[in-house]
């Protein structure tokens, strides 16, 4: 699939949102210098009010320029651990933001038909750029209440069984599937184990691999281990520029391998979890650029760019038969790592 992939890459690059518009109110730890500059600018602005003092205006512009370059410089060389923080950032657009921004007539579907409804994975049918699709993903929630409701995006077996149900329905009605991945991992708890978390994940991966409709996955934040793979075993896997995808969290790896949770920064680097690393390893097909300063500084821009990338990826499968689509997916995974 060399042809469609090339076009995909072109558009991803072209769709880079250049301007960041909306101001942010909170900052990550490593953004402190930028936060101070922004604060100073804000103070100056309120100080002069509507005054048209030329020198003051010039001063503000200078400061703004400085803040912009500082931000650009910081984000141009984020360490893997800093990327982890960005990927997990609470203000980052989450699954439902993407669904609301990209899907018309979104009709959520609920329940696994066996036990319960798990809102850690949301999904349903809707219209994406003129075609009916099945869309699903991990939702982390955006405030305390919704975070609890969605269990911080950590699914129970029910969530994965619901995903299987929706995927099979999509296959039944020939709907392409879009999955948005953003989870720290499947929930580790007594109930989850009791009801077969492992089996639910295995079946979900299994289901992904047998479908005759195309699946496009986008890791929009955190791709956490088996909990992510269960719905990310796709024909095309894309990642946002500052998203991460890993077999275990950096903290987990640090405490297991280094036997010291404080070594998380080292672990994040050694594990090769960034979108750029994964593209090099051939695990993902493309990277969707984020605005300078991360997706949360221009959610609309990043959601649109993601939509464009998904549309392009889907277009590549339009002429393929279900068998070809299935084979494409299986070959993609079987070949993975064989040329490393």
């Amino acid at each position, binding site marked *: 699939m060399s042809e469609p992939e090339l076009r995909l890459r072109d558009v991803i690059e072209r769709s880079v949102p250049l301007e960041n518009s909306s101001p942010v109110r909170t900052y990550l730890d490593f953004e402190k210098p930028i936060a101070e500059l922004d604060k100073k600018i804000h103070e100056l602005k309120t100080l002069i009010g509507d005054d048209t003092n030329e020198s003051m205006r010039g001063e503000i512009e200078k400061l703004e320029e400085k803040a912009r370059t500082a931000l650009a410089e910081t984000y141009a060389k984020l360490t893997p651990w800093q990327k982890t923080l960005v990927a997990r950032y609470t203000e980052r657009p989450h699954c439902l933001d993407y669904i609301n921004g990209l899907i018309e007539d979104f009709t959520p579907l609920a329940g696994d038909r066996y036990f319960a409804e798990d809102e850690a994975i949301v999904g349903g049918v809707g219209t994406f750029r003129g075609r009916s699709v099945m869309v699903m993903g991990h939702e982390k929630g955006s405030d305390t209440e919704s975070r609890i409701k969605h269990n911080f995006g950590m699914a129970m077996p029910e969530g994965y069984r619901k995903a299987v149900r929706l995927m099979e329905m999509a296959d039944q009605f020939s709907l392409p599937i879009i999955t948005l991945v953003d989870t720290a991992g499947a929930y*580790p708890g007594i109930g989850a184990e009791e009801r077969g978390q492992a089996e639910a994940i*295995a079946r979900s991966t299994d289901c992904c691999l047998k479908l005759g409709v195309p699946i496009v996955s986008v890791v929009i934040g955190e791709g956490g281990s088996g909990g992510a793979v269960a719905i990310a075993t796709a024909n095309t896997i894309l990642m946002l520029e500052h998203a991460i995808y890993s077999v275990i969290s950096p903290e987990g790896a640090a405490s297991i391998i280094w036997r010291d949770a404080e070594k998380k920064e080292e672990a994040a680097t*050694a594990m090769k979890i960034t979108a750029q690393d994964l593209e090099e390893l051939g*695990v993902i097909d493309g990277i969707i650029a984020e605005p300078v300063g991360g997706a949360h500084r221009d959610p609309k821009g990043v959601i649109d760019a993601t939509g464009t990338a998904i549309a392009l990826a889907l277009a590549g499968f339009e002429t393929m038969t279900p068998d070809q689509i299935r084979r494409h997916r299986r070959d993609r995974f079987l070949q993975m*790592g064989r040329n*490393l």
Partner: protein
Amino acid sequence: MNWINNVVRPKIRSFLTTKREVPDNLWRTCPVTGNMVFHKDLEANQFVFPGSDYHERVSAVDRMKMLFDAGVYEKVPVPGAATDPLKFRDGRRYPDRLRDAKSATELDDAVVVGEGLLDGQNVVAAAQDFRFMAGSLGMAAGEAIIAGMLRAVERKTPFILFAASGGARMQEGIMSLMQMPRTTIAVQALRDAKLPYIVVLTDPTTGGVTASYAMLGDVHIAEPGALICFAGPRVIQQTIREQLPEGFQRSEYLLEHGMIDMVVHRHKLRATIARVCRLLMKPALDKAEREKAPAAPKRMNGKAYAKADAVAPNERIEDPAASQNEAESVVEAEPVTEAERFEPKRTGTKAQKSEKAAEQTQAQPPKSDA
């Protein structure tokens, strides 16, 4: 000597010491009762401690020997895989750790794949070795599992997996995670070819292994008391900060919760697997038989055969190959008879049973699980 051991260990050790014929500890202590058992006796008893029935972890090679007829099997070649995709360092280079594990276990990686006869039937089997970096699933292990499953498809035989793994191999990061979908593709190949896939879950089977091929078998068998889970007890305890229930995530717990079909004592494992394989493969084998019927001496044509269940057994007695195999299955389980000294009563009845079974015609598959 300690310091010199530390310095020269991995590379030179293999030169200095030849294959260790005598294990360091001749006497093994049962973790349940504290009884001392001579290691040869333990081995003869399939690494099950007498009295407590505690199932000790078994190396992949011992697994294979216990499974196949007379312990004979042929290794299935496994394509090579990249050894250090991430150039992983955690104080030590990952290739150094690998080399250590290789020299300590005399294995290429955590999975051994073999083919041979199980009770006269052709099977392909793979066993994971927990001693090799906790049986973790990396690229090489993934390739081995896939190669084994595809070999079974090629040979049209059942595939038996002995799972034992701490989960993903973290030193291979995302490439390890990708073995979950990759191995699942091979499971689907088995399924498409309508071949039985028997998973034997042994202590411990956790993480990404449980969450992929180890939970996708047609029949799930677990050894008693094995830890089988997705998230380990420690992780769960840290998350919920509660005491975990007694026996949580053990084989018996999984049986109760519908995740596995049966918990089987190691002594009966071989017979159980053989029986399940035979039952599941029978229609396919019968069909194959019928298809090559003209050459066979059978006078019964395809049609008559299909409805003549009562006649079929007589016919099968005359089949020398089949009867030989069946007989073998009954007299098998050598290690169990050795165990007599620990459990005279039980093994005694077993021996009787198998004698009885041997006298019977080949009409029924032997019921004895000995």
